[in-house]
């Protein structure tokens, strides 16, 4: 759920001032909530959500409510429902839900996180560009990147092909992005006798983790040469091997001349 944050402990004048500003903002705000009529809304003035199970037929009806009633907190469901205002939950009739990637930060102290938000933002952009767009093939038009209002960023994916995924399937995507369960040995195809091993592996230009793996190894060989092999201190040998990786050839005889 998305939150609009305001400090809750303020004196009545401050409160009035804030509410006025909110109301003015809402009267012109660009409200971009796809299928708004299928979302459940929650509002709060004391807690983040004091009242929920509310729904609006259109963005304009939602705007009118915000301008007139101006709650301090507003949130909407990631899920789409047939009857968003029905209770209990089972009666709502779930139709699907946005795919949400949540990048939160945990740091010491109340303000510790703010100093580190830049890094989280970089991670969020990398997650969006390298994984969600490049690997999952989701168009940037279907993605919104939002500040969670507190300690991180949320990436909302509204591509209709993904809305119907269940929790297991969503977890699989999250594990993919985290690299959980990656077995890089699967990338390699080894053949030939021991003395003349032929190892075909991932290339730099490969998609997904294969390409990422090849790139990371080349980078590591160039940056931390000594930790790999003494052979690599010879720049020619090193280049011969890394050029081999670029082509997907990981065979040791690629640098056999110095063995």
């Amino acid at each position: 759920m998305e939150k609009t944050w305001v400090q809750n402990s303020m004196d009545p004048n401050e409160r009035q001032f804030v509410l006025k500003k909110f109301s003015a903002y809402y009267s012109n705000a660009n409200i971009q909530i796809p299928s708004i009529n299928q979302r459940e809304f929650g509002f709060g003035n004391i807690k983040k959500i004091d009242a929920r199970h509310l729904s609006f037929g259109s963005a304009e009806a939602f705007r009118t409510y915000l301008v007139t009633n101006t709650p301090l907190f507003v949130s909407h469901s990631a899920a789409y429902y047939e009857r968003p205002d029905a209770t209990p939950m089972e009666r709502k009739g779930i139709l699907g839900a946005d795919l949400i990637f949540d990048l939160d930060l945990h740091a010491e102290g109340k303000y510790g996180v703010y100093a580190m938000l830049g890094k989280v933002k970089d991670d969020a952009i990398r997650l969006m560009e390298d994984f969600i767009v490049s690997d999952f093939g989701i168009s940037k038009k279907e993605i919104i990147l939002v500040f969670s209002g507190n300690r991180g960023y949320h990436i909302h994916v509204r591509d209709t092909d993904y809305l119907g995924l269940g929790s297991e399937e969503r977890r699989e995507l999250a594990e993919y992005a985290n690299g959980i369960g990656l077995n890089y040995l699967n990338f390699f195809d080894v053949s030939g006798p021991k003395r003349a091993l032929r190892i075909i592996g991932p290339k730099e230009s490969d998609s997904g983790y294969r390409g990422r793996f090849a790139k990371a190894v080349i980078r590591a060989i160039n940056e931390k040469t000594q930790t790999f092999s003494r052979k690599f201190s010879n720049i020619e040998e090193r280049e011969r091997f890394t050029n081999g990786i670029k082509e997907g050839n990981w065979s040791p005889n690629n640098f056999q001349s110095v063995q």
Partner: protein
Amino acid sequence: MDNLDFCVRYPFSNAAKELLEKESISPTPEIMDKGLARLKSALSGKWMKSTAVHESEKLAEVASYAVSRMILSYMRNRYLTNKFAVAEAKLAHSFFEKEGDGALGTISEELGISVKKENQSDRFVTIHGVNGILFVPLPAYLKFSPRSIDYKLVNRSVSNGFVSVNPHERRRLMEEAVRKKAGEIPQLRGGVPDSIKKAAENLKSDLPKIEPQSTVTFKEGDNPPCMEKLLESLKKHENLNHQSRWALAVYLTARGMSVEQIVSLYSNLPDFNEKITKYQVEHIKKRGYSVPSCATLLSYGICCADCRIGSPLNWKGKVWGAV
């Protein structure tokens, strides 16, 4: 005729549905018997290939699938439904192997797996020299790939919204899609015909008298969330993949459960085979496998909570001695 044979092979297809509507077939005693036989063979863990020769027999065969589902809808027995879904999926799979590209494409598409032969927008690699790589849209792959480490997304080639699979893997995805489709039983509309009630009575005597359950009972909170989840799935007669079955059996063995008790627990599985299960569980006991660590379970996709205990055996700070 070709269409009729197609419908016999894939009675869950749209073509079969249309055929039944067009012919407006009413459930004759012969069709009822075939529907019942379909369920009985599923219950015994087998799947029967059709031996129908004449057109009317073939029609009855197609209709028997619908009748089986009506009986299931009336009985609302999850064990039987899952057994049926697994048997239908395996039966369909046995046809996929010999199916031509056209018909396979039709059925694949209907199941929600529209494959592409090549993706012009990106370059793909051929993994382990397997030819005929196909590309499955990611959402379909997620929905229908078996939950096993071989199919784990992180180890697949994923690009631009497509996952590459070989023809065998594509058929496996299709099998999973059939299992899901066959297992979704709609509510019966209107009154239940007596013939359905009679068939249900007949089947009840074939169902395990008391649903098989473990004799070792754990108290709530005795097991870590991952193992609890697997046990829960077993109780609901859901299918578990190989790694999950293995991990649970090793865990239960370490917790002191006997081979017989584990086999009895596993008899809840829709594709339960007593001989194979017994052999596997005895093997686990003989080899004395150690319980997989949390890291291993995470890589298998079994871990479902962040309990930070290192091993499922460390749950609640207790260490249960291995047998």
